[in-house]
């Protein structure tokens, strides 16, 4: 009896806009903590978000590049949770009507064959801030420079059947966003990271197994070695 692995990836690509998705703060990496967070990023009561048109343009470019539908009308929603690096208490994301849906990406495998992978959706989302647990003994530092950084969240169907295919797909998306100039692809700085949903099932079975989600895989090496 043989088993097969089923993998779907959710890639978070930080869009290469100069300012944040809902505010005019800079998105440049490496600044002093909390120097690139304005009233909107800090979630002050009474301020309102203004959508960055460049982020929308970049998301649409990605949609066109994978032959997807670029929605003429897409909707932002709130993902509510409590965490100290999320000052508003919710993340603004897209849920029911994402800007991009139903595209295809052809991946190249080692044996010279190719496979077409279905991209279910790609939606715009604001990143949260960072909690720094190491610098301060017994305390947690909060850096809100990253809060409000635009992300394109690219969600594949569970079409991938091995870690190698997952890596090939991730490399393909990485190459594409860099070619389009919509993401710098820097994995060390977290500009390109990935959550993996993995399950196993009997070979040939139609039903999917129970999945596990591995968050924030930030290198190709980690992904290849990740136990399944």
């Amino acid at each position, binding site marked *: 009896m043989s088993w097969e692995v089923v993998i779907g990836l959710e890639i978070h690509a930080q869009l290469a806009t100069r300012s944040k998705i809902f505010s005019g703060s800079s998105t440049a990496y490496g600044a002093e903590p909390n120097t690139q967070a304005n009233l909107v990023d*800090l*979630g002050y*009561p*009474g*301020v*309102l*978000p*203004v*959508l960055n048109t460049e982020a929308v343009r970049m998301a649409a470019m990605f949609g066109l590049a994978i032959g997807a539908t670029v929605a003429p009308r897409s909707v932002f929603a*709130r993902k*509510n949770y*409590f965490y*100290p690096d999320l*000052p*508003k*208490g*919710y993340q603004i994301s897209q849920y029911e009507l994402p800007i991009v849906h139903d595209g295809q990406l052809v991946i190249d495998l080692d044996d010279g064959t190719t496979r077409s992978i279905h991209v279910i959706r790609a939606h715009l989302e604001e990143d949260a801030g960072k909690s720094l647990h190491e610098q301060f003994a017994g305390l947690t530092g909060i850096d809100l420079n990253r809060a409000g950084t635009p992300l394109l969240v690219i969600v594949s169907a569970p079409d991938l059947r091995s870690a190698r295919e997952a890596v090939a797909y991730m490399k393909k998306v990485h190459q594409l966003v860099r070619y389009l100039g919509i993401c710098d692809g820097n994995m060390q700085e977290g500009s390109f990271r990935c959550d993996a949903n993995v399950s196993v099932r009997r070979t040939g079975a139609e039903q999917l197994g129970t999945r596990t989600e591995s968050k924030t895989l930030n290198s190709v090496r980690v992904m290849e070695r990740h136990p399944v």
Partner: protein
Amino acid sequence: MVAFASSLDQAGVLALTAEDAALLSTAMAGFDPRDSTCADAPVPDYAASLGSSAATSLAGRRIGIPKQFFDAGLEPESAAAVREALRVFEQLGATLVELSLPSLALSVPTYYIVAPAECSSNLSRFDGVRFGYRHPDATTLDELYSRSRGTGFGAEVKRRILTGTYVLSAGYYDAYYLKAQQCRRLIADDFRRCFADVDLIAGPTTPTPAFRLGEKIDDPVQMYLNDIYTIPVNLAGLPGISVPCGYPGGLPIGLQLIGPHFGEQALFSFAHAFQQETDWHTRMPPS
């Protein structure tokens, strides 16, 4: 403006006269590029035409009177004060037209889904980390949240946050928040149909005269029901104005005028005309 229920939040003016309200509204209204929820529409000088006698004549204008505003919930003395106010408009040449807002009864339950849902999200930032009261004795993050919010918020705010979090929770969203959005559309459609036939809609602002501060604090449903005539206007996104029109029992009752979208000018004109003919706005409740 601190966000409470974002789809309902709207800045408004409290003034001594309709003319003052018109002056201040002219200064306040208009497009703000940092507010993507506002409309980019021209703002007339609302006060400019109020003084002239031509504007005071309401000849040929039609005022809709929703029969649901005068049903059993309205106290008789309030009804009498409002009917008396409506006669002033008739004397100025306006025609009163009875009409129906069949979905009106949906408005309080709809509001108490929509407003708590949005408030539970908007008030989550008052968690003791950056904003709001911070409990000094919290020892863990969960305790910081629960003790700060448990102590810092009052009973009515907590009631709304609990209701709102419940109606937005997974599995209940469609049954409550989504359904409330659909009811909201029915209410707005009622008004839209009416404005095809009338310039303005008029009725009481509340079903009873004002109650004393804190008097109904232990009866939230009674307090909620007092908003039955103003909540549908808010849900439908329409402008409204309330002017005093009587003091039954010593406390004020309001006449409410409701306009179509961007119909503020007519509200100020009618309210100003009413205040030229009456002196309710110059009186004070007994102290």
